[in-house]
């Protein structure tokens, strides 16, 4: 089993750290993992994306042409990566700042209003955890238990008091994710 995942958005949205948590979660499950970031010289505000691969076998390339799962958090990323989702794959997006919705009908499309929920709950920092929760709901590639273990590994110890808040946010994300299109395959 291989999951080739792209997470793309603006720098500062927690794109790279969400990828890191997924990678650590994969590590906790004993999978092979790779995490490859791509971002401009400016980390906040510029576009940022990360390719995360979780696999039961050795990973040949950390860079791939097509993805099983795309998590899209801004319009430029949707424009770039929508066409690169494998037929039958998954696209999860936050409609905030994405006026042109995904068009593909041969993939499963899910919407998560993570930014709006973060604003409503006055908890901007939980944004990427809502998204991660949404992903785990629609495609449980790793267990919540391993995600929490991965989170603990990837967070510096001084932030470990935030772990319960993160778990709550993941559970909230699982609640608010909506199916927009179901791929036939």
């Amino acid at each position, binding site marked *: 089993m291989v999951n080739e995942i792209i997470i793309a958005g603006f720098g500062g949205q927690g794109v790279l750290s969400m990828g890191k948590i997924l990678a650590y979660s994969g590590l906790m499950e004993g999978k*092979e*993992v790779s995490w*490859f*970031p*791509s971002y401009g010289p400016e980390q906040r505000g510029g576009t940022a994306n990360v390719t995360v691969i979780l696999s039961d076998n050795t990973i040949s*390339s*950390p860079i*791939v*042409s097509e993805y099983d799962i795309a998590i899209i958090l801004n319009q430029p990323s949707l424009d770039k990566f929508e066409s690169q989702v494998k037929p039958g794959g998954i696209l999860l997006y936050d409609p905030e700042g994405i006026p042109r919705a995904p068009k593909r009908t041969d993939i499963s499309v899910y919407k998560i209003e993570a930014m709006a929920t973060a604003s409503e709950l006055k908890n901007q920092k939980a944004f990427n955890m809502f998204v991660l929760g949404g992903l785990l709901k629609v495609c449980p590639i790793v267990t919540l238990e391993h995600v929490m273990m991965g989170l603990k590994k990837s967070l510096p110890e001084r932030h470990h008091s935030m772990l319960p808040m993160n778990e709550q946010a993941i559970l909230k994300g699982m609640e608010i994710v909506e199916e927009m299109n179901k791929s036939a395959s």
Partner: protein
Amino acid sequence: MSEEIYLMKGNEAIAHAAIRIGVDGYFGYPITPQSEIIETLMAEAPWTTTGMVVMQAESETASINMVYGGAGCGKMVMTSSSSTGMSLMQEGVSFLAGGNLPCLLINVMRGGPGLGTIQPSQSDYFQTVKGGGHGDYKMITLAPASVQEMADFVDLGFELAFKYSTPATILADGVIGQMMEKVKLPEFRRRRTEKEIREQCPWATLGKPADRKPNVITTLQLDSAVMEKCNLDLQAKYKEIEANEIRYQEIDCEDIDYLIVAFGSAARISQKAIELARAEGIKVGVLRPITLWPFPTKIIKEYASKVKGILTVEMNAGQMVEDVRLSVNGQVPVEHFGRLGGIIPTPNEVVVALKEKMGC
């Protein structure tokens, strides 16, 4: 090898490996995409544990000359930089080679020329392998393709550098430096004592005991006959390295019609590309040179009599392809595919190039 598995960036793996194998000193100046090396070393503060010195020099020129000083004392010393910073070091690199001094250099390549880009590239192949500095010298060049090899090649690089008393380079790129993978780090080894260094490196300028003449490390020989002897000695050493130290990996190379030759991250991408190509019925394998110098000429020549064509995949405009063509000597077509300026080729692009350029 320690049994514990870590998830870390290639750059971080280099720093941890250096501390663990008992390196004496790191001198460097930060530059993207390899700043995590000095950042990790500073965070780990090995001067409080192993006694390893970590110094941010005022420039790359200063770093390489600090390396020259440390290497002259027989110490295990290293520096790291990226492309444009390596250019600044080339005078010192030539001096290290001419002075027969062991050290480890790390270049995590970015796109050039000039300041270029901070994105990954492999365009310093010529600079490293063909001699970026002046004079007839060769550089032992190791090309890692995984985070594990980033960690392993620190030890291997020093081993070869000391075995032959010559500089060695780890030629990585921004992909391998920045990506995270699982890695096992080397076991901790204590730094060598001064007594051990005196025994292992009798040439080291560590202070003259009463019973021998002073050791002199110099690259200046105004008598041409003496200088020619120095050059011939260097060449004899390089012949020995070429005879003993070639390393490469063959991936799915049984029963092939076509061969891709690629190093570093381009080899990883090519590995995925051959999975895709094989699904379409194209019989293709990857030969990955691990040492770029000494270059695996012989094995490539052997493949030339078995395949219809060879494609090199490089993140540059075609550099290693020249060495592949020299190895093959016209026996089969050798073509190059590359992306430039920090663009990373995708596996699909490699498959398309394979079909177009090899006609398969």
